[in-house]
């Protein structure tokens, strides 16, 4: 996912990423002007390929990068680049081998997901929200980042992001979001 900068301008023509401000993601890799920056197309494809979230779910949103690889999703108006404190919400960490969605993003958009969603029983869900890791041998899908969800008030509701490896689901719920429920 991160190695297709060659599709666009050569690396030497590209600006370095300025981690202090928000820059809007280019529509496609070919329109990239900042070295190493993911494109909107790659981000939308990632959510579709990994979680089967329909690309249309993002039609009304723009994606932005600030810092090294931290991607934000925004529904309002803003010029690019812009130096402010926050723009919409963080949604994804790029510039690393395995991209990682945020807890708050999957809570907001994860109901649209059809793949890589692991349903937790109520005690497992409580442990996950408290930040605990659990052995979960029953998962037969892909390893890597999953959306952990539980059934609540008659519907499946995403709780956060888990990392599934070697039969264990590790809770990625950030410390400040963890709760004893």
């Amino acid at each position, binding site marked *: 996912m991160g190695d297709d900068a060659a599709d666009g301008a050569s690396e030497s023509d590209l600006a370095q990423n300025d981690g202090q401000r928000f820059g809007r993601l280019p529509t496609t890799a070919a329109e990239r002007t900042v070295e190493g920056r993911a494109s909107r197309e790659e981000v939308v494809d990632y959510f579709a390929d990994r979680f089967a979230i329909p690309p249309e779910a993002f039609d009304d949103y723009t994606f932005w990068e600030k810092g090294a690889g931290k991607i934000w999703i925004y529904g309002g108006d803003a010029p690019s680049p812009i130096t402010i404190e*926050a723009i919409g*919400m963080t949604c994804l960490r790029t510039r690393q081998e395995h991209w990682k969605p945020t807890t708050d993003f999957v809570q907001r958009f994860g109901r649209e997901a059809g793949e890589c969603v692991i349903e937790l029983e109520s005690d497992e869900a409580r442990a996950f929200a408290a930040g605990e890791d659990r052995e979960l041998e029953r998962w037969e899908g892909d390893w890597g980042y999953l959306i952990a969800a539980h059934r609540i008030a008659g519907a499946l509701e995403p709780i956060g992001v888990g990392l599934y490896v070697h039969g264990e689901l590790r809770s990625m719920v950030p410390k400040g*979001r963890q709760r004893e429920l």
Partner: protein
Amino acid sequence: MEPLERYRPIVDDFEAFLDACERPLGNAVRVNTIKASVDRATTVLEEEGVGYEGVDWNPRVLRLETDSPGSTWSSFHGFTHGQEEVSAVPATVLEPEPGERVWDCCAAPGGKATQLAALMDDRGTVVANDSNLGRISALRFNAERLGATSLAVTNDDARNYSLERFDFDEFDRALVDAPCSCEGTIRKNPDALDGWSEGYLDEVSGIQKGVLGRAVQATREGGTVVYSTCTFAPEENEAVVQHALDREDCRIVDFDLELEHSPGLTEWNDEEYDDHLEQTARIYPHQNDTGGFFVAKLEVTA
């Protein structure tokens, strides 16, 4: 409670007012309709065994029967957000619409800014500003937990706020929920009156006048500005609105509010205010068993 004595002449049933101020306040939450409908949020509360009671004036505000409203699934999922009942008033008076550009001048910790986003179906632009960098992290945390994608967060002094950073040059609406002496939060913070002084009223009202003036200037003709505080002091309420009427292009407009309230004052000590200040609202703790609040609605006229 002594500083409150100065309001004896303006508060009906002053003893009931004082009694209410001495009673602790329960836990209220606002349903965050960005993430869940009122039906879904209340069903989750019922499943968790958390008792709740709706309030008459706003279907999205609930009073919870629990001491730890933050330790529920409904809170973890961002379906509900702890917010005092009266603090849900100003955003509803501002009545933002989807797609608009709205400025929340003093937005941290974000309860009202995210409420504005929810009222706009999270479509449009809510510029959530606060001058205090330390409080911006709480604002960002709440915005993310509540899933508000329409917020742009800035850290500046609202009194000389510049729109140059954006690609638009005026707002459709602005909310000035001003820093204040917080007398009306006495039921939540029993020490709210500890540092009270008339000197502080002078100091904070200067800031309030500056922020409200800038909000009127930054809002388009025909747009709406709501001014609110959680205090009773007329120096911070009617006098601030009067100052904006005198110097900026704006007028007071009437609004419906289904909570019991008293009209704004047209005189205080030796000062007289415009008759239209009667169309502003003073909400006292004994009227609805809430905190205290002041709200004024202005239309920008040029």
